């Protein structure tokens, strides 16, 4: 009621919150939870992992232009018998920053997606498995850079039996009598 009668209080509170949030801002990359992925055995299932770089920050792409820059890199620890295919990184954007007006950096900003291919072998017992990994990144804003960080990444994979292929029945062969 007080806030309804005095909207300026609400405005000031919002402003205070925004200002305090801005002061305590730090580089952050967040990971969107992934629903359970159903992966048949002996097949490759593509999984999109969605990340978001906080507004005002950028991180190097997987292929930065300088050997001294730290690339964004996803490393997965996999359960036995579940093979990870190629990790596909999106191309970065070439962006010039105030601190490098003459040299564009290849970076990720905003939302980006890394795709991993999950490939359970035939020996995997059907069931639910948790895939763990870490995203390593190094963030900067327009005036400063922050030490490299790691972000835990995980998602569930439900391994199911492979689709059965048509079986040849020798008894049906016309050559067998």
């Amino acid at each position, binding site marked *: 009621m007080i806030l309804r009668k005095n*909207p300026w209080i609400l405005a000031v509170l919002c402003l205070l919150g925004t200002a305090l949030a801005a002061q305590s801002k730090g580089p952050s990359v967040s990971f*969107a939870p992934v629903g359970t992925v159903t992966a048949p055995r002996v097949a490759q299932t593509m999984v999109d992992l969605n990340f978001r770089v906080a507004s005002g920050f950028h991180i190097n792409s997987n292929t930065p232009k300088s050997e001294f820059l730290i690339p964004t890199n996803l490393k997965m620890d996999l359960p036995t018998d579940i093979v990870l295919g190629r990790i596909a990184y999106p191309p970065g954007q070439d962006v010039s920053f105030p*601190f490098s007006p003459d040299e564009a950096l290849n970076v990720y900003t905003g939302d980006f997606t890394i795709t991993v291919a999950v490939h359970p072998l035939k020996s995997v017992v059907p069931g639910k498995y948790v895939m763990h990994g870490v995203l390593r990144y190094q963030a900067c804003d327009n005036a400063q850079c922050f*030490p490299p960080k790691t972000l835990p990444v995980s998602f569930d994979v439900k391994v199911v039996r492979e689709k059965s292929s048509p079986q040849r029945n020798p008894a049906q062969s016309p050559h067998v009598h």
Partner: protein
Amino acid sequence: MSTPEDFSPVASPDSTPEDTLPQTPPTPQPPASGRSPVALIVAAVVIAGMLYFGFHAARRPSATVGAAGGQAALKGPKLAPDFTLESLDGQTIHLSDYRGKAVLLNFWATWCGPCKIEMPWFVEMQNQYGAQGFQIVGVAMDDSSKDDIAKFAKEMGVNYPVLLGKEAVGDEYGGVPALPESFFISRDGKIVDKIMGLRGRAEIEDSIKKALDAPADSNESPSMKAQN
């Protein structure tokens, strides 16, 4: 599969503020407590400005050396913590080795883009102010190998000592949460200014002059005494 929308918190669809408020007959509302939207915006901008400048003022220590004794002295610049680090050429360097000189202590890393912008300025500033008793000391807060750091420093034409940083040294200087970060130390070992992040060259020069011009305290700093 998730979509980018998954990042956003989703409000519960089955409750709204209106649902939780008691249903009362409408009452006449005063005209926003008599405050116009313009006044609100002005108030908001003023408060935001105060917060911004207050925050940045708090991040920079006083540039003036406090008067001797009393509370003014307590509010004066702090002593720069002494440390011992290895330089790129294998020497053991103490910060206190530079006693009697004004020092720009610059924390940087090879992966830090803004740090690269400052380095050519530092090279020129070392040439310009070195004769006045000014010394830049770089501290590489880097996981890279010594060779990589040396290669980088050579490419940048660095003409001042570069030390291999340690986290403990960074902690002594407030943690160094982001790079670049520079501390300006007077001849008697006190931090008279500090710059976080990339700033203008003129601002850095102003801070160098503060360090050079800061009157030396008659009492030698403990960090300096430790090396005597």
